[in-house]
């Protein structure tokens, strides 16, 4: 299996350059003012992983509280208010500060221009600005939750957020508003880059599928985030001036808030999952050594997921007093989501079929993704079905479902992508053994944590409760133990990757035998990405021998 992978140390005629984007201009000030998309990507990576750590720690604490029905943590009693704050902090940090910015901000920022054969994103200064907007929003968000003790959950439902909660909801929503701007600017930058900065010879259907996925993500960021922004402003103004928009106390309509919120936040789910799918579309052909099956179908399914995501928001309000007709329509529309998702999974599996599969660490994660995403996606159908939804609403079944999609799918793909592009980003190979152990722990820990939650959810365990009936004890205890394995796996990932930094640069330019343009430059890349402007001569994922190769479908 090995020979395919060591396809020569360097690509092209140039010797390995002494200067690259990492060792040129290394003062802190150079980093802070850089407009290089690769450096901004690394800064995003550090930022979002930091919040992943904090959010993860909170998750472990929540699981500890729930381990026994005594609502204690290390013997200290945790009351309902404290528990509310903890899960709000966990949810808000994970959604707004980790999952939404992680793949677009870090991995995509790094590889998108490389894949297109461009020297940078379209607006490099705007790219840096969006990073600082993210930092500002993050500081504001964390301080309002920690100091202001926000306890509304990450969804800020009215009237709880507008009149019942006396906490810093206004400043928290403004923080989310600011973070939304960071997301908008990133999306805008990617759209312009994809439209205008593709390498000569690269048409729309010659782009790697990662780009299609990220382009679809950017479209959602552009179309949905402004609506969330204005909704949160309305909420903050309502709270401050007592205007009747969402709060029945002042003559408003609380379900209107849910409509506004989910008009953004349902598409936002696809801001989180599409980048994961985008990464998997790279990993599968690279490690199957086979042209991707159904290129156009995958490209179109990304775009159609982006579009469908805008017409299903009502499925969050089946029990919120929405009309029966609307419920039926939204339920039917929700099933549409399954079609492009199914198309993708079918194409990935068919790509692997009769491929020359090379089981390196990123491919382990890709396979884990396929399994976890199938479970997360199919349980989504249960929840989209009106009759079962009524039974399962606000139970742990929902919690388990969205963790399978958000974490089991997106974070699995993120970790796979991180391993995949790590040699390109740092110039160093990591320990394969360590990588595989971390993946195995991740997969076991994840299922151990969340499968019990499906079961107890179907038996009626409500979400967001700090305590429970004794009958749920075994499931909660099992889930908590699972969370420890999950924690261990993430520390293993960190250990494996950080250990690779201790040795000298050893990564070849194309360690995995990838065919997309980011592998056609040195590892790590030079500051301006390519020695020569790359020209696309072969379509992506073309694994035919050189003699048979050529562009054209």
């Amino acid at each position, binding site marked *: 299996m090995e020979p395919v992978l060591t396809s020569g140390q360097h690509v092209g005629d140039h010797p390995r350059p002494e200067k690259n984007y990492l060792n040129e201009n290394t003062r802190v000030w150079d980093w802070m003012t850089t407009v290089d998309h690769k450096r901004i990507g690394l800064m995003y990576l550090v930022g979002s992983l930091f919040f992943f750590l904090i959010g993860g720690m909170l998750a472990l604490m929540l699981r500890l509280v729930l381990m026994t029905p005594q609502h204690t943590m290390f013997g200290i009693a945790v009351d309902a208010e404290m528990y509310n704050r903890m899960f709000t902090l966990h949810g808000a940090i994970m959604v707004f500060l980790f999952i939404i910015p992680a793949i677009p901000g870090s991995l995509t920022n790094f590889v998108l221009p490389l894949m297109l054969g461009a020297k940078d994103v379209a607006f490099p200064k705007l790219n840096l600005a969006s990073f600082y907007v993210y930092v500002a929003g993050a500081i504001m968000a964390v301080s309002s939750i920690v100091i202001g003790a926000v306890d509304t959950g990450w969804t800020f439902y009215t009237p709880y957020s507008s009149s019942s909660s006396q906490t810093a909801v206004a400043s928290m929503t403004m923080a989310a508003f600011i973070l939304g701007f960071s997301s908008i600017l990133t999306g805008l930058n990617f*759209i312009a880059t994809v439209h*205008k900065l593709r390498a000569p010879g690269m048409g729309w259907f010659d782009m790697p599928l990662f780009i299609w996925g990220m382009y679809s993500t950017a479209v959602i960021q552009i179309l949905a985030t*402004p609506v969330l922004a204005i909704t949160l402003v309305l909420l903050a103004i309502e709270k401050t001036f007592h*205007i009747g928009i969402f709060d029945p106390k002042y003559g408003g309509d609380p379900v209107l808030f849910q409509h506004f919120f989910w008009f953004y936040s349902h598409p936002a789910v696809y801001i989180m999952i599409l980048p994961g799918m985008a990464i998997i579309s790279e990993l599968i052909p690279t490690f199957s050594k086979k042209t991707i099956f159904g290129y156009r179908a995958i490209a179109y399914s990304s775009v159609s997921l982006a579009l469908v995501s805008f017409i299903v928001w009502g499925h969050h309000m089946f029990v919120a007093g929405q009309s029966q007709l609307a419920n039926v329509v939204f339920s039917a529309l929700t099933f549409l989501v399954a079609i492009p998702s199914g198309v993708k999974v079918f194409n990935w599996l068919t790509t692997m079929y009769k491929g020359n599969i090379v089981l390196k660490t990123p491919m382990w994660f890709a396979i884990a993704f396929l399994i976890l995403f199938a479970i997360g996606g199919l349980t989504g159908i249960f929840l989209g079905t009106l009759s079962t939804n009524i039974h399962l609403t606000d139970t742990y079944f929902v919690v388990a479902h969205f963790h399978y999609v958000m974490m089991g799918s997106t974070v699995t793909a993120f970790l796979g992508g991180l391993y995949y592009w790590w040699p390109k980003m740092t110039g160093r190979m990591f320990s394969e053994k360590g990588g595989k152990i971390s993946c195995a722990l991740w997969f076991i820990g994840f299922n151990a944590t969340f499968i019990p939650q499906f079961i107890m959810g179907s038996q009626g365990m409500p979400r967001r409760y700090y305590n429970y009936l004794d009958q749920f004890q075994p499931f909660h205890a099992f889930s908590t133990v699972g969370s420890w394995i999950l924690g261990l796996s993430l520390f293993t990932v960190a250990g494996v990757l950080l250990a690779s930094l201790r040795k000298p640069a050893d990564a070849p330019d194309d360690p995995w035998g990838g065919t997309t343009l980011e592998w056609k430059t040195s590892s790590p890349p030079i500051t301006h990405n390519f020695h020569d*402007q790359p*020209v696309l001569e072969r379509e992506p994922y073309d694994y035919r021998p050189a003699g048979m190769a050529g562009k054209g479908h």
Partner: protein
Amino acid sequence: MSTTTTDLHAHGGHDSHGEHHNPFHQHHFATMEQQFDTAKIGMWTFLVTEVLMFGGLFVGFGLSQAKYPQEFVDAHHHLQRWAGSLNTVVLLFSSWTMVMAVHAAQTSQKARMKMFLWITLLCACVFMGVKYYEYSHKFEEGLLPGMFYHSQPTDTIPGSHGYATFFAFYFMMTGLHGIHILIGMGLILWLLKNADNFNSEWYTPVDLFGLYWHIVDMIWIYLFPLYYLIS
């Protein structure tokens, strides 16, 4: 495209044919044309987000109006229709002067471009002046949002909040629009300060600002009938 990356970098934006290079040409674009098109796509995308942001407010207004139809009609009689009409005319005229400014920039007529930019700025000032007059009128009468509302007549339906909600939306929407006008005024001043840089080869900022100004006008075109012409 056979130019090497290092060449492109060393000379700032020198293309492979050795043509004289424009100081505003950024190194990661192959040609000035590509740079201009990219900027334009970026601007249009940004304007889409603006429309969607206002869209949320329009939907909120529409739903509140459906909830308090009578109060909204009554409340709108407190707006001065002549002031709104005047502002509509002023803004429409400024859109025309902006078009002329962009055309002047495209054809390297600097003096003409400056003149039209100044007229556009003047229109914006008139708009904000009228807005100031209207707002102070509302403040005097107590036609204010939410808990600050203290005018007669109070709501026709006891316990409802139609008037206060109407003026809440009025201030939010015209206020957000006014902030956009203020930002636009600052941008016009910036364009005037850098007017000497713009010519037929590079006038991207003028062109992009023109797009921004038109969208701000267009939002007003929708705000005006929404608030002043309810029946």
